[in-house]
């Protein structure tokens, strides 16, 4: 086998722990991923050497830090194949990126005649900012429904989009159900109407190679921490033409060219959207994560993840009473399920005692849970460092849960 998962696991120190005296099984990757040693060491190395504030310093360390910081931006650009490095805006996370777009695009382009389209499968981070800006600008928020199969209803979307639509904001892969959305089709339809599309790629970047130019999206955003990088860093990719037209979001140092009490002029891209001291250490750490992932290759990662996901779904379905949510829809990385009528919190509490970390609840995607008429689900979210053995352990735990609550 070309994909040596046991070798790969050695790169992730957090995986080798005991929880309640049992070897940890970490199945909460959609919430946050574990980090390879290379990333952890890079952060420490940074703080031991070139740690400095960037961009305005003439001194050696500041110039080194600036080079490394801007080098990381270029690495991100290259990794997602953006056309320009100034189309890469550093934020604090996917939520911050989406707030930036909703606020800045919204203030410029939304008014009482405008409509915004999101979907029923969104994470709260891609719902609430749009609700808020639509309310502020008196625009209308419309929601793509889901079909029985748990996929987005593209027919409904085609009927929904019209001259008033100013932007479509949809997730790439649903964190709650693992459903992979037909993002290229959505973009094609939107672009036929000259409507830009923002893709919430918080889960998308983790499970597939991203080429923003091939995808054609106008914005793409994600968090470092879900993609094997440090916490506290997010990315917003935006096409230059939109970023140029949008007003700044947060303001302060760095994002301005000149400040007087009468008039302040703003800096160029990407700095127009970046204010305050950036999280230099973690941005550089994120570069190490990308290097690490690229070293293995997203194609092998995807192939292996699909294999264990498939194995996991089959294994769990074989247990009487387990119901996989959105079963049949195209999936990546996530098994979201219920066991009989057992409350997810009950199940999760017991599964935890086996040293297995799963998440229970609505996964910050309450609307889709409401649509499915369930209080939440149990979610096992996989990464390429998980194994079939670990899935077997989850299956055993589920059987115990069934017995305990029978």
């Amino acid at each position: 086998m070309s994909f040596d998962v046991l070798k790969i696991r050695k790169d992730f120190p957090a995986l080798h722990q005991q929880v309640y005296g049992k070897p940890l099984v970490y199945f909460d990757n959609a919430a946050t991923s574990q980090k390879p040693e290379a990333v952890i060491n890079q952060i420490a190395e940074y703080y031991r050497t070139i740690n400095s504030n960037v961009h305005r310093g003439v001194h050696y360390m500041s110039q080194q830090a600036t080079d490394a910081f801007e080098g990381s931006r270029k690495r991100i650009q290259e990794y997602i194949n953006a056309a320009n490095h100034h189309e890469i805006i550093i934020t604090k996370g996917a939520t911050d990126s989406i707030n930036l777009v909703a606020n800045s695009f919204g203030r410029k382009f939304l008014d009482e005649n405008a409509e915004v389209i999101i979907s029923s499968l969104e994470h709260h981070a891609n719902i609430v900012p749009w609700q808020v800006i639509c309310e502020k600008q008196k625009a209308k928020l419309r929601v793509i429904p889901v079909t029985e199969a748990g996929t987005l209803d593209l027919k409904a979307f085609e009927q929904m989009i019209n001259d008033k639509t100013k932007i479509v904001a949809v997730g790439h892969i649903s964190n709650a159900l693992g459903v992979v959305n037909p993002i290229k089709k959505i973009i094609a339809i939107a672009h036929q109407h000259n409507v830009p599309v923002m893709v919430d790629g918080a889960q998308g970047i983790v499970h597939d190679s991203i080429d923003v130019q091939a995808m054609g999206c106008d914005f793409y955003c994600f968090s470092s921490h879900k993609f094997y990088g440090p916490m506290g860093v997010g990315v917003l990719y935006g096409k230059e033409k939109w970023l140029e037209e949008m007003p700044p979001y947060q303001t302060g140092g760095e994002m301005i060219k000149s400040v007087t009490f009468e008039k302040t002029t703003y800096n160029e891209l990407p700095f127009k959207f970046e204010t305050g001291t950036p999280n230099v250490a973690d941005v550089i750490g994120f570069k190490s994560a990308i290097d690490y992932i690229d070293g293995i290759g997203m194609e092998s990662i995807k192939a292996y993840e699909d294999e264990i996901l498939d194995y996991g779904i089959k294994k769990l379905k074989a247990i009487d009473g387990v119901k996989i949510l959105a079963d049949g829809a195209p999936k990546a990385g996530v098994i979201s399920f219920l066991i009989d009528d057992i409350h997810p919190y009950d199940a999760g509490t017991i599964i935890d005692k086996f040293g297995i970390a799963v998440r229970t609840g609505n996964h910050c995607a309450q609307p889709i849970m409401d649509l499915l008429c369930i209080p939440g689900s149990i979610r096992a979210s996989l990464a390429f460092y998980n194994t079939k053995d670990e899935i077997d352990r989850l299956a055993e735990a589920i059987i115990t849960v069934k017995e305990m609550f029978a």
Partner: protein
Amino acid sequence: MSIQETATKIVNEFSLFDDWMDKYNHIIEMGKTLPMIDEKYKTDQYLISGCQSRVWVSAELAEGKVIFKADSDAVITKGIVNLLIRVFSNQAPEEIIDADMSFIDEIGLKEHLSPTRSNGLVSMIKQMKLYAVVFKTKMKEQQA
């Protein structure tokens, strides 16, 4: 039985079980004997926030003692809230307010006691003690 006596009794019950699974089975059992509240109390007003499952707790005063009832959509939560009800119910407000909760440690439910935990044990205790405070104030007013 006083609060302390019930607490000791519960600690003894749990001490019979060596492993976590038996402990949880006992909690689940306790969930099944929970004095359930009337459906009409299952409203937001009686809902305790801070829990991943929904828990409703109602309280009434009868002859100077507080009677608690509760329900939850999760069985473990039912068990935990019943454990609290066994300790608190039928006690004077004063006793409830002053009750020492360290027995929860001894049961081995310590991990549930952090205020940041998603099961909301701390919120439940807070809410029940709050009821007691309200009743105590009422009783004082009536005496006055």
